[in-house]
C-alpha cells in the first residue's frame, strides 16, 4: 500500500477552520460580540464610579440668604447634586425617586430633613447630609477623618467582568462551536455521508474538538488584550496557569456541546437544548455579578455548575494570583462536566 499522503484528522480540522473563518456571521458572534459587550459594560460601570446624591432644598422656607448659604455649602461637596424647589413639588419628587432627600430651613436655625425610609439611597443621602452638617458644627471635638478611595486595578468592576466574559465565551464557544456544528452537519446529512466512507469516527470528533480549541486562541487573546489595553486589566497569577485553565475549560465545554448535539435532529432542537443549558448559567454562574448574591440554599447547586467553576477559577488566577493547586475543586468540577457528557455522548451519538 502506498504511504498515506492525506491525513484525515488534519484535513477534517482544516475543513472546519476554513468553514469557520469564511463565515463572517460566525466570526462576528464569536470575536466581535464579546468585545462589544465588554466595551458597553466596561464603560457603563466606569462612568459612574460613585453614585451622586440628589438633594432638594426648599427655597420658599427661610430667608433667601440662608437658603443660598446652605445651597452653596452642599454644592461644595462633590457627592451632592443640589436642586432648589418651591411649593409642594418636593413631595412629588421625593415620592417618585427624583430626589433622594429634601432639606428645609427650620425657624430655630436648624434643619428639617425629609427622606423616604423604604429607599436605600435616601437613607444614604440623609447620612451624608447629616455628617456634612455635623462636621462643621462639631469641628473641634470630632476626631480627624481622612478620606481615601480604593481605585487600584484589580478591584474595579471591569476586572471582575473580564474573567466572567472569558468564561461565558468559553462556554458559548464550546456549545455552539461543537454542538451547533455537529447538529448542522447532521441536518445536512453530511454526517451520514461521512459515515459511509472509511473515515474514523474518532478522527472526526477529535477534529471538531481540536478546531474548537484553535478558534479559542484568538478569541481569548482578543478579549484579554482588549481588557489590558483599554482598561488595564492584568493577570495577577501565572500566565501558564491561565493558559491551562482556558484550554481545560474549552475542552470541558466542548464535551458538553457534544452531548447537547448527540441526538438532536433539527437546528431548532439543538438551539433549544443549548439555551436550556446556557441560560441558567448566564444568570447563576457569576458572569456579570458575583454568584454569591444568590441565597445560601442555592449555593451548593450553583457551585457545581461548570461555568461557576470556570469563572471562579479564572478570577482566582487573574485577580488573586492563585495557583492551580489551590483550585482543585473547580478543576474537578470542570473535569467532571467535560468527561461524563463526552462518554455519554459517544454512546448515544446519532450519526445519521
Amino acid at each position, binding site marked *: 500500500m*502506498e504511504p498515506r499522503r*492525506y491525513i484525515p484528522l488534519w484535513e477534517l480540522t482544516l475543513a472546519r477552520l476554513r468553514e469557520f473563518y469564511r463565515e463572517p456571521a460566525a466570526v462576528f458572534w464569536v470575536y466581535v460580540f464579546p468585545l462589544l459587550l465588554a466595551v458597553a459594560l466596561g464603560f457603563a460601570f466606569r462612568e459612574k464610579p460613585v453614585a451622586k446624591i440628589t438633594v432638594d432644598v426648599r427655597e420658599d422656607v427661610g430667608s433667601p440668604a440662608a437658603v443660598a448659604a446652605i445651597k452653596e455649602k452642599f454644592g461644595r461637596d462633590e457627592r451632592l447634586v443640589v436642586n432648589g424647589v418651591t411649593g409642594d413639588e418636593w413631595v412629588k419628587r421625593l415620592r417618585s425617586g427624583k430626589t433622594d432627600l429634601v432639606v428645609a430651613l427650620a425657624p430655630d436655625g436648624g434643619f428639617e430633613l425629609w427622606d423616604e425610609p423604604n429607599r436605600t439611597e435616601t437613607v444614604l443621602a440623609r447620612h451624608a447630609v447629616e455628617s456634612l452638617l455635623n462636621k462643621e458644627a462639631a469641628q473641634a471635638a470630632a476626631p480627624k477623618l481622612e478620606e481615601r478611595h480604593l481605585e487600584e486595578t484589580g478591584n474595579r468592576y471591569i476586572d471582575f467582568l473580564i474573567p466572567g466574559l472569558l468564561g461565558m465565551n468559553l462556554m458559548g464557544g464550546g456549545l455552539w462551536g461543537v454542538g451547533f456544528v455537529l447538529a448542522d452537519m447532521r441536518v445536512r446529512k*453530511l454526517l451520514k455521508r461521512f459515515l459511509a466512507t472509511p473515515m474514523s469516527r474518532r478522527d472526526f470528533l477529535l477534529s471538531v474538538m481540536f478546531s474548537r480549541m484553535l478558534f479559542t486562541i484568538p478569541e481569548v487573546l482578543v478579549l484579554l488584550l482588549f481588557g489590558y489595553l483599554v482598561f488595564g486589566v492584568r493577570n495577577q497569577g501565572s500566565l501558564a496557569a491561565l493558559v491551562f485553565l482556558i484550554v481545560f475549560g474549552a475542552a470541558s465545554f466542548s464535551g458538553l456541546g457534544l452531548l447537547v448535539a448527540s441526538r438532536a435532529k433539527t437546528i431548532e432542537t439543538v438551539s433549544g437544548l443549548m439555551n436550556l443549558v446556557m441560560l441558567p448559567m448566564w444568570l447563576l454562574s457569576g458572569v456579570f455579578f458575583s454568584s454569591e448574591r444568590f441565597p445560601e440554599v442555592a449555593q451548593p447547586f450553583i457551585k457545581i455548575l461548570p461555568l461557576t467553576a470556570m469563572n471562579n477559577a479564572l478570577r482566582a488566577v487573574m485577580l488573586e494570583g492563585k495557583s492551580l493547586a489551590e483550585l482543585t475543586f473547580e478543576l474537578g468540577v470542570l473535569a467532571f462536566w467535560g468527561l461524563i457528557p463526552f462518554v455519554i455522548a459517544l454512546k448515544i451519538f446519532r450519526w445519521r
Partner: protein
Amino acid sequence: MTLAIRCRDLRKTYPGRPAVEAVRGLDLEVTVGECFGLLGPNGAGKTTTMEILEGILDATAGEVEVLGLHWDRDGAAIRRRIGISLQETRLADKLTVREVVRLFRSFYPSGLEPAEAVARVSLEEKARAYVSKLSGGQRQRLAVACAIVGDPELLFLDEPTTGLDPQSRRQMWDIINKFRESGRTVLLTTHYMDEAERLCDRVAVVDRGQLIALGTPTELIARLGGQHVIDFSLADGQAPPADEFAGLPTVTASRLDAGQYGLTVAEPHTALPALLRHLQQTGRELAALTTRHATLEDVFVNLTGRHLRDDA
C-alpha cells in the same frame, strides 16, 4: 459470474403506529461490471434498499452481501471499496470543490488524485469555486466526484439526476458510462424511465417494497407483449371503458387514464386500421392519436395501474 451485490428476502420495517414496511422481502443480484437500476415511484423503498446495501441502515431481516462481504463483519473493508452518492447531501457551503474532494480523499487509504476526480466529472473550471456557488447539476457531479475519489469497485448513486436540466442529465450519464468502461459496477435508483433505458443493463422495478419485474429494459418492454403504444383520446363527452378496445387485433393491453387511452400493440399496421374501423362503427370521434415505442413507463403502468411519477 461474480456477484457485486446479493440480497435475499430483505426487509425493513420502521417502527411506529402504524409501522411502515418500507421493504418487504426483496431479492437482488447485481453482477460485477453491470449497471443495475432500481426503478420505482417515490416511496417504493428504493432509497431504503440502497441505504441498507450501503451499510447506513440496518435491515430488519434478510441477508446482504456486498462484494462477497458482510456488513456486520467486514464493514470497514466494504467501505474502502465502495463509493456512494446520497440523495440531497448538502456538502459544506464554504469549502471549494477541490477542498471537498480532497477531504473525502483523505478518508481512503488509496484512491485517485483529487484533481483527477474533479476532472472525471468535468468540474476543473469550478475547482476553486465554493460549493454554495455551484448549480444543481454541478453539485451532483461534485457528489459523484466524492463517491469515486476512493477509486471504488462499486458505485451507489441514489437519484443522480433528479431535478437536473436535460443537459446536466446527459453529462451525468456520460460520467456514469465512463466509470463503467473500466469494468466496475454501478447500482443506481431513478424514477426516470429514459434514464434507466439509456444507462442500465438490467432493471428491477420496485413498488411498495417489493420486486414486481426484473430484466433488461428490452426484455421488460417485450414482456408487455407489444413493443408499440397507440395513445388516443375521443371527442368531448365520450368515455367508453378501456376494455372496449382490448379485443382488437394484436392489442395486448388497454388502459384509460385521465381521458387518455393507451393500447399496447404488437403490430401497429394491423391494430390501427382495426381501431379506426371500430370507432367509425360505434360512431365515436377521435380528438387526437399518436403512436410510439413502448417504454419502461408503460411496463410500470401495466404492472401497477399507476404512473411512476405523480406528475407524469
